[in-house]
């Protein structure tokens, strides 16, 4: 059984249906990516998993436990970290305070300090800027902070919403390298990307979303090679 099992998830914003029977699963240790065009329902899927949006129907099981009715804070405590769309760092707080807030659900000071050290090792730039206000960081640095902050809750599953958005190609390389590193250290990853080619190239498996439905699901390599996926999402 997978670490995360999403089954037949329906979600809506008011009367607009955003998800229409989405099913997906993520196994422990995997990198799974959710790709698709703007408005396909990628962010909505993550929001439904982390409890920020209540699903109208369907089930979400994490580590064998039904979580679709739990509040977002309970879900974070269970081990689902979510680096949000648009980064949303606390702009007027220092980098360090941002990371501290990432560990809000945890109590042990020594463990938090150790994890902060690990984040600083992963992202040396954040250590350099630890006392700087997050709003003064560059876009790439803010993305690193958003990811580091999500890691501070010590998640079993880390969900990343468009980490490459608005970054230079070089920085995108760096960020994707770090995602692989984090995964190699044992954190399972669910990655949302518009940059489908790049995402599929580091993922084990992928799902292609189209107006709220999963239209393709396969091994990443198979999706990358698939004629249909190539023409629709990878620009031929």
């Amino acid at each position, binding site marked *: 059984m997978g670490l995360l099992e999403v089954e037949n998830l329906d979600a809506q*914003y008011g009367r607009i249906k955003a998800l229409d029977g989405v099913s997906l699963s993520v196994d422990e240790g995997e990198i799974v990516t959710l790709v698709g065009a703007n408005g396909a329902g990628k962010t909505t899927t993550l929001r439904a998993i982390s409890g920020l949006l209540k699903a109208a129907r369907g089930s979400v099981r994490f580590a064998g436990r039904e979580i679709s009715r739990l*509040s977002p804070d309970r879900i974070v405590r269970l081990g689902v970290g979510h680096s949000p769309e648009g980064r949303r*760092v*606390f*702009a007027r707080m220092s980098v360090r305070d941002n990371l*501290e807030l990432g560990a809000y659900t945890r109590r042990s000071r020594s463990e938090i300090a150790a994890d902060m050290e690990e984040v600083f090792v992963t992202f040396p730039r954040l250590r350099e800027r630890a006392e700087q206000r997050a709003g003064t960081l560059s876009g790439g640095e803010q993305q690193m902070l958003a990811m580091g902050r999500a890691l501070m809750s010590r998640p079993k599953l880390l969900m990343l919403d468009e980490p490459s958005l608005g970054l230079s190609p070089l920085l995108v390389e760096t960020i994707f390298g770090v995602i692989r590193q984090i995964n190699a250290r044992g954190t399972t990853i669910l990655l949302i990307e518009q940059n489908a080619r790049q995402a599929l190239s580091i993922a084990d498996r992928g799902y292609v979303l189209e107006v709220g439905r999963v239209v393709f699901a396969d091994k990443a390599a198979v999706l990358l090679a698939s004629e249909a996926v190539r023409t629709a999402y990878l620009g031929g």
Partner: protein
Amino acid sequence: MKFGRERPFAVLPFLVLPLVPLLDRNNSHIDFLTNAGAFILLALGLNIVVGFAGLLDLGYAAFFAIGSYSYAMLASQQFGIHIPFWVMLFVASVIAAIFGILLGAPTLRLRGDYLAIVTLGFGEIVPQTFLNLTQYTNGPNGISPLDSPSLFGHSFGFSATPYYEVMLALIALAVLLATNLQSSRLGRAWMAIREDELAARHMGINTTTAKLAAFALGASFSGLAGVAYAAKLSLVSPDQFQFNVSVLVLSMLVLGGMGNIWGVIVGSFTLSFINGFLLPQSTNLAHSMHLNLDFTNYRFMLYGVILVAMMLFRPEGLIPSKQRRAEFREAKLDPALAAEEQGEYTLGPGPGAGTGG
């Protein structure tokens, strides 16, 4: 308790101020200081809601009313119940906290302007209710006299001094509580909510409980203020808790510096000083010079001038909190960012509520 350790100088005023009645025998001065103290308590309470958690509350006087009426109903001839003053301090702050939760709960999904309007409504409803429940509250006549507090068998009587000392003790307690709250886990949760509520939820902060805690704790301070104020006056009536009280307390925060405990105290005392001392004294002076001028009539004009001047020259307040200062400095450096932030605050759901995916 970090209070004395981190800021040893903070203890000093609470060692010196109790001695003031020994130096200044003028009862009206002590009376003025006591009233100013009640407003400092109110300002410290509202600061938890507005300054720490960023929830704009325009009806805070409602909790002052609830605290005062609790004392009036439970410590007077009204129902023949005579709970001691000291017990009532605790009881009334609990009652006010409960109402803080009751009135806070319906507003949890509201932000910015909308929250302000609903709290404004509550601020009007509560005194109106006390006014109309004539059989319990004597309506517009209010309830009087109220039990005079006593300590070790000595009744407080009509001197302002014992009330002054009690008020100082309550302020010391409130400062201690507020300081510790600010640096607590809950304090960090409030700060995160004030910055970005959606991001706060991503961090695993239960925003519902954190906001309700802010409403409850903020209201409990005004429960204390209400009891002490009502006991000193030996009277409560609905007209003591009008909208202008809510505005006055909020102005104290704006003037002093929202979110900064010492700023709030300075702002509060400054407005009280203008209101209760400077204007009446100037009027007396004018009269003694045979000028027919009543400066107290210009009170609200003066507030207006002060607030406009503050907004123009020092919007972060006299003694701003670290974050507030950052906020306004940023606004100066980057108007575009500030405008975006502004939009996010006032227009309800921010970009995170989008349907993208």
